[in-house]
């Protein structure tokens, strides 16, 4: 097999020196689900991050606990790109079942690390192979039997670190973070890593161009997944009640609540909890509990994914009509039933917008980064209580479960907005109360909370028709009047929801609209399009209802591509309803494979002047 690196034009042309490609590669680690490779991969990605190299980490895993193939991709990018790429430069092939398939993902001149007890590959003569004596290295270390498989994954960490020049000290610090400062766990892993590293230093000759060098581009940033960020944001938003039912890819959000709430929200003197987290028997119950607590006046939330939302639909509709503030995180995945539960999607947009029977429309937020998950985590409670309605935070598997560089979390700069709530003293002063009266004309009525002792405070919450005083009514005018007020309220919401983020390039004539996790691929694609002479303006949506900026952006461009990860172009359809007179300008770029969209796909499909 050929083991000569392919010359790259963008690297050094000194004939005597091997070409070098610094801090720019995608590396995929192919393993078997359940073999404990997550620690190894986190050690590598966090070490790179700590060396100041921009990174992102994506775990592509099956719906399975043990035995099926799984891939963890680490992208390093000196330009700060974090989107998925379709080809990779480096493969660490730890799964014999997918070895050949994994080789095919390599670019020409790519690199492959593999255990030397696998049969030597006969394919891909253009690839640099580094066989790794994993079994003999593990034998030398002789870890306890129960840790053997786990520790053996550390061998590739040491060898990859040696070849790519990843600093061992940073790997050690990364493990300290991973094991939360537990030295013993760190040391038992480092022993294997150091041994493998030492072996590679003496026994392997570097024959590939890929290198890591210390940089300073991650200064002050954090590396985190969106679900943890969302949970932390919710805690700083004062969540005091959460009910949930386990579902991939949402579970780690409420699990993070259960991890951090005891640290952050126990009464110091009594040790009592200022929160309650309930794992419900299903999503119907999770929704019911969340609504009961929100009605009572707690900051109340749940987190789920598509199938769970289906079960929640009836209760969410009731919450909309009773006007109960709650927050629902939808960490989107593919398909109904089992679907593709471990693959990412933006397929719930239309469903969530109208979730419920009868006429319902919901307020939705679209975070694109962990910092935004944190911010929307607390802001969603302010919005829900201001608007007295369910607020959805639309994340997805890619954002929720993968690892992203992010600006650090910023402490909320605004005091909490608890909305229009009347206490007993207010009622005594006002002397009159009707739960659904629109006093200010913004569609938002005043509410009282159970426990309010004033005789005027009481009202009976129900889905059935009610008049302004929350009394049972089947009068046509009462129903119509209430719907009109609810629509007025949703219009008011436009003044409170986060506005889109607008990015401009000079001379741009076409517009791109995206939201959530399509952002990194769109950003990268815009750089490439611009270099190819196609500058673009880009509007990243952050909420529904749409703010007035959205209409202005569409009016400004003759062609607007709406880039999203669902088959029907769901956001595009909602935008067409918003701006019907410009519906034809809106072109759908829908990518729906279960994988995050790539910049290459966007570049290939933005074709100005052609029929969309």
């Amino acid at each position, binding site marked *: 097999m050929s083991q000569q690196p392919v010359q790259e034009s963008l690297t050094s042309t000194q004939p005597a020196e091997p070409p070098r490609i610094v801090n720019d590669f995608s590396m995929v680690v192919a393993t078997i689900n359940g073999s404990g490779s997550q620690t190894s991969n986190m050690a590598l990605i966090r070490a790179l991050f700590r060396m100041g190299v921009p990174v992102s980490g994506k775990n592509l895993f099956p719906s399975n606990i043990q035995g099926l193939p799984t891939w963890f991709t680490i992208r390093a990018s000196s330009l700060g790109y974090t989107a998925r790429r379709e080809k990779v430069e480096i493969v660490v092939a730890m799964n014999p079942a997918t070895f050949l398939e994994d080789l095919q993902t390599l670019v020409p001149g790519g690199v492959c690390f593999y255990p030397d007890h696998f049969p030597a590959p006969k394919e891909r003569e253009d690839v640099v192979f580094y066989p790794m004596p994993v079994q003999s290295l593990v034998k030398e270390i002789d870890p306890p039997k129960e840790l053997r498989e786990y520790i053996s994954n550390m061998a590739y960490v040491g060898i990859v670190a040696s070849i790519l020049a990843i600093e061992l000290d940073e790997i050690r610090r990364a493990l300290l973070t991973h094991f939360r400062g537990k030295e013993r766990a760190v040391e038992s892993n480092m022993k294997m890593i150091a041994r493998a590293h030492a072996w590679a230093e003496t026994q392997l000759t570097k024959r590939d161009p890929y290198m890591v060098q210390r940089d300073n581009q991650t200064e002050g940033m954090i590396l985190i997944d969106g679900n943890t960020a969302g949970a932390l944001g919710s805690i700083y938003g*004062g969540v005091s009640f959460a009910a949930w039912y386990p579902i991939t890819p949402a579970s780690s959000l409420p699990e993070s609540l259960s991890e951090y709430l005891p640290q952050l929200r126990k009464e110091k003197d009594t040790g009592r909890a*200022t929160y309650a987290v*309930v794992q419900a028997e299903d999503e119907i119950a999770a929704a019911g509990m969340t*609504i009961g607590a929100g*009605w009572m006046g707690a900051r*109340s939330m749940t987190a789920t994914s598509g199938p769970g939302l289906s079960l929640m639909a009836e209760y969410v509709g009731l919450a909309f009509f009773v006007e109960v503030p709650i927050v629902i995180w939808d960490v989107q995945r593919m398909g109904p039933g089992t679907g593709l539960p471990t693959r990412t999607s933006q397929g719930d947009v239309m469903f969530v917008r109208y979730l419920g029977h009868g006429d319902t429309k919901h307020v939705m937020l679209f975070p694109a980064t962990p910092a935004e998950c944190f911010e929307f985590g607390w802001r969603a409670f302010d919005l829900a209580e201001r608007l007295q309605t369910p607020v959805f935070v639309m994340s997805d598997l890619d954002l929720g479960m993968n690892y992203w560089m992010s600006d650090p979390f910023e402490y909320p700069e605004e005091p909490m907005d608890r909305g229009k709530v009347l206490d007993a003293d207010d009622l005594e002063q006002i002397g009159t109360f009707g739960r659904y009266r629109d006093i200010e004309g913004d569609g938002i009525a005043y509410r009282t909370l*159970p*426990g309010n*002792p004033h005789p005027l405070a009481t009202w009976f919450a129900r889905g059935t028709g009610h008049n302004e005083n929350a009394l049972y009514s089947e009068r046509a005018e009462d129903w119509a009047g209430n719907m009109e007020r609810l629509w007025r309220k949703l219009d008011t919401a436009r003044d409170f929801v986060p506005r889109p983020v607008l990015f401009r390039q000079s001379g741009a004539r076409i517009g791109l609209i995206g939201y959530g996790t399509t952002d990194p691929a769109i950003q990268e694609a815009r750089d490439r399009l611009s270099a190819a002479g196609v500058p673009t303006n880009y509007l990243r949506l952050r909420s529904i209802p749409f703010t007035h900026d959205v209409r202005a952006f569409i009016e400004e461009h003759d062609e607007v591509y709406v880039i999203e990860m669902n088959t029907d172009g769901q956001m595009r359809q909602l935008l067409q309803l918003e701006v019907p007179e410009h519906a034809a300008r809106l072109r759908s770029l829908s990518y729906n494979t279960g994988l995050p969209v790539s910049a290459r796909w966007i570049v290939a499909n933005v074709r100005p002047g052609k029929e969309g």
Partner: protein
Amino acid sequence: MATVTGTTLPRPANVNLVGLERTDYKGLPSTLCQGCGHNSISSQIIAACYEMSVAPERLVKFSGIGCSSKSPAYFLSRSFGFNGLHGRMPSLATGALLANRSMKGIGVSGDGDTASIGIGQFIHLLRRNVPLVYIVENNGVYGLTKGQFSATADKGAMLKKGEANPFHPVDICIEALAANCGFVARSFAGDPRQVKELIKAALSFEGTAVLDIISPCVTFNNRDESTKSYAWGKQHEDPIHDMTVIPIREEIEVELEPGEATTVEMHDGSRVVLKKLERQYDPTDRMAAVTLLEQARVNNELLTGLLYLNPTQPSLVDIGNLALTPLSELAEDVLRPAPATLELINAEFR
């Protein structure tokens, strides 16, 4: 002769300890049928809350969907209430009562709402021991949708159209016992005094208290042979004891012969006096309760009373070790951790 009494404070006649009259506990006029058992139960809820001096603003009402679930509008207008979804009231109550531990919860459901569509949430409510008085107004039939069988309908019961029910009924009390509920009672809407005393006992119990009350539907299921009819209930009711609740700070004299009665102290200090009737029965023996119910079924009897009482189990509020200030009343400085804590969190992910 022993006397069980409490002490009381001087107050005007017709006013309870919180200064309210019985009429202060009323609701809107009922829209249920004349003679419906549910109306009788609503009256006893009003009486029990008055006699237990419940402050209306400290009580919340919950219900699901059905005739029974409409009834919370017909009592305690001065209490907040939430008419939820069919079979899903337990979850609503769970969230609400965790969010404000200072509130007393009372839920009204029906046999369809509990034993058909809601059996799952019902069992999980009991498993968690949510502090809630859970009343099932059990008539064995769907009223609002006009006469279909529910899961508690008698085997062989006939619909108006002549169709017979082929299925064995769900026994709500046996389900509650199986789920380890600490307060399981059966009663009959035609026995208002017992209904009232059971509600009073349930109001002083901290945990889920299940009251399965046979409450005849005069429109769809009141044939004499139906076990959910007035006639059958009157003929077959067999109370297992005579029950009196002595609220804390109340003075009531109950004359007892030695060995004639069991007195159980409840969480709030109220006492439940169970006076023996014909049979020997220990209401703290869970398996005895199951056996008794099965015998009653075989013997075609309507056994009523407090079948099982175990006030020692922690409620969900205890298990959650919740702050004494209700979660819904926590101030911003408690809800939002201090800025310095966020610095530490950011450092954790660098």
